[in-house]
């Protein structure tokens, strides 16, 4: 076991579940909300913010017991925190490390910032195509407006 791993486990070990690491502190609660943590019942959840990290300075971290996320649940986070790492813990061991990645298509998560877009005037889910994964540019499937990462409004 690497020194880094050992240290992490010493902080607050969970037996089974998910550890979401390297969350930018400013985005921590947005990430928590995107994952729907406030509605999660029965799972022990530990949220830490402004933790010291050698790699990134300050960071946020979320540990959720007995919860394993589906790919599309995880990728929702990519919009607000693209460099987050997910550790899948089984029997106190990190069995898998996942980097979040922007999906090709984002459904129902983002609001189109074109007021004349049909999605803002009709009860319907939004659909965005990710046109530039590096810079995080998305394009509305309906009105074709392109939205840069910094202008993205999460619903």
């Amino acid at each position, binding site marked *: 076991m690497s020194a880094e791993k050992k240290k992490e486990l010493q902080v607050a070990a969970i037996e089974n579940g998910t550890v979401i690491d390297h969350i930018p502190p400013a985005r921590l609660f947005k990430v928590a909300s995107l994952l729907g943590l406030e509605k999660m019942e029965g799972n022990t959840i530990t949220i830490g913010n402004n933790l010291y990290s050698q790699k990134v300075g300050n960071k946020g971290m979320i540990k959720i017991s007995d919860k394993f996320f589906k790919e599309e649940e995880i990728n929702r986070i990519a919009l607000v925190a693209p460099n987050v790492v997910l550790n899948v813990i089984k029997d106190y061991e990190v069995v898998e490390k996942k980097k979040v990645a922007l999906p090709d298509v984002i459904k129902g998560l983002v609001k189109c910032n074109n007021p004349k877009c*049909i999605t803002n005037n*009709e009860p319907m889910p939004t659909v965005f195509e990710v046109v530039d994964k590096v810079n995080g540019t998305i394009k509305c499937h309906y009105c074709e407006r392109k939205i840069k990462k910094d202008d993205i409004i999460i619903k």
Partner: protein
Amino acid sequence: MEEIHKKSAGDFFILYLFLNFVYIERNTKSCMKNKSLVSIDQCSKEDILRILDNAGEFEKNPNRRLLEGKVAATLFFEPSTRTRLSFETAVNRLGGRVIGFQDASTTSSSKGETLKDTILMVSNYADLIIMRHYLEGAARYASEVTDIPIINAGDGANQHPSQTMLDLYSIRKTQGKLEDLTITMVGDLKYGRTVHSLIVGMSHFNPTFHFVAPNELRMPDEQKTFCDERGIKYYEHTDFTEDVINETDILYMTRVQRERFTDLEEYERVKNVYILKNEMLENSRDNLKILHPLPRVNEISYDVDDNPKAYYIQQARNGLYAREAIICEVLGINV
């Protein structure tokens, strides 16, 4: 014997599967994924050429009863007399019947009905919906909620593919080809959806573009990046000069609208700069043709109208043929 019987049944099944596959293949060849025409960029080069060829057939004979027994709905949530008359004429000349409305204030959408409900209701009656809407993306959404084909007759500032098709038809008809042409676009290149779509439509045919516009209304980066990615040559100008006109095959004029300017002094300064006058055409190429999506206000002087190079009125007539071809395309009718 039983063995042989089983084998031939299996062969038939394979043949059946194969025929089904061929059928699906044939039907997915067309540009329209769900048979609707929402945006010009869903059309491949082959799709465009096929539709233009068919439009040529309709020019030879516009009156053909290919829509006998069919009903087309023209749903104009935003008024557009020119486009609606052109589409309705196309349906009538094809022998179909038209239902619809030309003003959303008289329909249940003014009572708060969703677009989805309106489209589904009309889908019960019609074989085809031709729609214009003030909201962007409305036609794409409509095409997703119904099984009958949708033709987008303009959705806000977004797409108006039948306009692009008639522009392409006019260009090919007057130049005898679409390849290797120099096209100069003048006026409002920022908000003008017709010029943006024309760039996409022409992108299959190795064009050279000149973009002539005031700084406030110059071609957006998105369209320039589109050209860069495809190796399409373009040049930007703020002055509208004879030098540019003289190396042009197609001069595509658009309206500079006062309401587009944040700085009205800038408008006053440029409003007369992008006006085409007859004397500017003196040394232009013999094959030059002047196009305009219409309506025009003052951007083409009336003395240009009598110049044989003026083509904007005939261009509008080509809209009828292009729309007849588009209607048959989405309905899968062979022309």
